[in-house]
Structures are given as C-alpha cells and as structure tokens.
C-alpha cells in the first residue's frame, strides 16, 4: 500500500556544511569521479581505496564526489567517470544504475559482480522461490519460534528473478574484472582515462579472481 503523505528525503538533500566558495570552485573544475556499490560485498570499494598513494598523483585533476565515505544514493551533479561495484539484484539497483548512466559520461563495471553477476549470481541457477524459502522459511539459522515470513513491503526493494550484470541494464563503457580487481588495475584504468589515453588493462594485471 502506498503512503503518499510521507515525504521522502534523500541524504544528499539534508543540510550540509557549506564549502569555502574558492575551494569549491577548484574542486568543481576537476574531473568528477563517483563510485557506488550494488549487490556486492564492498570488496571492490576496498580495492578502490587500495589505490593508496598512487591516487595522489591524480588529485590535482580528479575529485571524488560520491564514494564509500559518503552514503549518498544519488550523485549531486554530473560526473565524468562512474565506477560501479556489484550485480543488479533488485528494482532499486536498476533505478540507481539508470540514474548513474544518465549522470556519468563514462561508466565502468568494477569486479566480477558488476561484470557478470559474480558471487550474488550464484543464486541464478536456483529458482527465486527456492532462494526465498531457504533464506526465510527453512533457514537453519531462523530464530526458533519466530513467525516464518518472507519480508514484503513497498519500502523494501523487489528482488529481480536473476542477478544481472550491469551491462544488461544500461550501456557500460569499460570493464575491470577481478574479485576484487587490484587497486593497481583500477588505477591503471582511471589514469588512462584522466590522461586521455586509450584504456588498456594489460594481461598481467587482468584477473578474474
């Protein structure tokens, strides 16, 4: 049942500390980079952080608008590069991924989950109903005596029948395989893009696990 009297407020609409205008202007002139995770384990985000000091060489050219440090669901303004972690497993993932596509010039699938479904896609060989039954009804870890129920509410995103790779939902421009890829691989792609080179992930840093 829909309750239209509730006004939704997204985190990026909440009051925030104002930037120093001079600093803001500098940041806004840089290449805007965002990263978001869908159905993944956040491991690829950790690899993003693993770029470590290599990232320093890009900081005068790049600014990170949305990342694992901020819990913004939407990107506040247009971005040049969007890194996507995770497969697409529910209707909210689809909506947010479409929002990223509309607001990023370049979208990149990072990690096995985004590239082909990865770990969450292991459920793709099992009918959805069976997955739900195993998770909520016949779960060996269910609280004894608790009412067995499959959660359903309009505020809970609806699970898709299968976990999809990002490129089956929107066009993705580049792919960085790995579970997770090394920070080095993510950096190589970012560095190529920022410096206007053709993206090339050499076979010695490409990996699928």
């Amino acid at each position, binding site marked *: 049942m829909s309750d239209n009297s509730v006004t939704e407020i997204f985190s990026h609409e909440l009051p925030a500390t104002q930037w120093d205008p001079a600093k803001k202007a500098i940041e806004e002139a840089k290449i805007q980079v965002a990263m978001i995770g869908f159905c993944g384990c956040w491991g690829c985000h950790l690899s993003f952080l693993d770029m470590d000091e290599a990232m320093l060489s890009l900081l005068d050219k790049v600014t990170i608008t949305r990342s694992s440090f901020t819990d913004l669901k939407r990107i506040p303004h247009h971005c040049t590069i969007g890194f996507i972690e995770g497969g697409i497993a529910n209707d909210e993932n689809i909506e947010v991924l479409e929002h990223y596509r509309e607001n990023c010039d370049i979208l990149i699938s990072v990690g*096995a989950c985004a590239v082909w*479904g990865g*770990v969450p*896609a292991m459920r793709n060989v099992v009918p959805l109903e069976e997955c739900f039954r195993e998770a909520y009804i016949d779960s060996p870890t269910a609280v004894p005596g608790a009412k067995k129920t499959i959660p359903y509410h309009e505020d809970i995103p609806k699970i898709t029948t*299968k976990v999809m790779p990002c490129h089956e939902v929107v066009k993705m421009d580049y792919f960085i395989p790995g579970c997770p890829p090394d920070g080095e691989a993510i950096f190589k792609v970012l560095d190529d893009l920022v410096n206007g080179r053709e993206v090339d*992930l050499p076979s*010695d840093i490409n990996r*699928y696990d």
Partner: protein
Amino acid sequence: MTVKITIDGQSINAQAGDAIVDVAAENGVYIPTLCYVKGKPCLGTCRTCSVKVNGRVMSACTIPVTEGMEIDVNGAEITDMRKALVELLFAEGNHNCPSCEKSGRCELQATGYEVDMMVSRFPYRFTPRVVDHASATVWLERDRCIFCQRCVEFIRDKETNQKIFSIKGRGTHARIEINPTLANKMSAEQVREASDLCPVGCIIDKTQGFNDPIGKRKFEIKSIRARVLDTAAKNMTANQANSLNREHP
C-alpha cells in the same frame, strides 16, 4: 622435408607435417589452445586455435603445414574471432573463478587473459549443472566443463583401456559423465593426471584444494603464453642439436 610458409607475413622454413600451432610457437608466435595436448592425437574440439590459412579459417592444431601456406594469426578479425570463442565458453558454463580450486592454474582462465577478455559479449546463461561426487576420489564440477574431451580420450582404465569419462547428450544437453566403478580403480597418480589434464576446474582431485597461495600459482609464476613459447624454443634447440648430430656424427 622443409616447406616455406609465412606467418603474419614473416617467412618461415618448417618441417612438412608439423602442426601449424607448433611451427608458430617455435617461431615465437603464440596461438592459444584449449584442447590440444602436444604429443597426443588432436581432438580439434575447442577451435580456440583458429587462424586463417590462405584466407580460410582453420584450427591450427589439426592442420599440418604445407608448401606456400600463408597464415594469418594476429590479424584483427581472426584475433577477435578467437576471443569470441573464449568468451562463449565463459558465457556457456558457470565460471566463478574466485570459488574455483583451479583458479591460477586453469588454462581457460589463463587463455582469457591472453585474449584480453574483460567480459563476455554473449549473455551469461547460468545453466544449472549438477555436481557429481559419486566417485571416491574425483569431484566433477560440471559448471566448468568446456567439453574439450581430453579426459574422454586420454584417461582410460589401465587394465581394460575402457573410457572412464564420457560426454552424454548433445548441444545444450551435453554433460560430462564419470564411471564411478572405473574411477574408483584409478590410482592417486592417475587421479592427479586427470585433474591436471582437465584444462579447467571440472575434474577436481578430492585430495587437492586451494593448495597454492595467490601470487604463487602456476600461471602467476609464468603466463601460459610464456610457457608455450619457452617449451617450443627448447624443443627447437633440442631438434636443431639432434639434426646437427645426425649431419655430423
């Protein structure tokens, strides 16, 4: 008999009858393979070694060189065709490398890196494939089988020469089967041989798991390309030494 051929425009003298794939490797040109095992009869099942011979696509492991052949290995079109074949295999089976015991020593994975595969251009199929653990020593992870038939042809019962592995069904119904009675007669060495021969992580030796740490696994130590080219270079030197010995006893 020596024949003259060209590979990607480079003139090469080769022994008539040698497979294109070997002649190429001996001359420093890597052609990916997945079913070919040097020294064993050709299976010709995977087509990963496809090259153009005088303009026609052929599998380099099954075709012997003949006089005047013009072979295109690294042209853009044929390179992409081989890549597509590898991508097909990843889309057809379920290849979750992070949870695969063979990862790091898998020929399919290593070949994926060599053909620069980042993602499959084909929709991933996620076909349910049942695991078979009926045999005492072998774990058959059907998700990963690429139907190369190496195990079918080359792993046989020592006593009767009967096949231990077989492929049942055709097309999308094809599946690898194991005869548990014969499999249980396999020695530990033969089980290891079968699991090593399987290019992917389908035939898993139950006593082996994630034995080598990440970073120290077979193809991390040395890529499949470097292994193929180095072995060929060594063979080449040995052959040259042999022929010299023959000519000057």
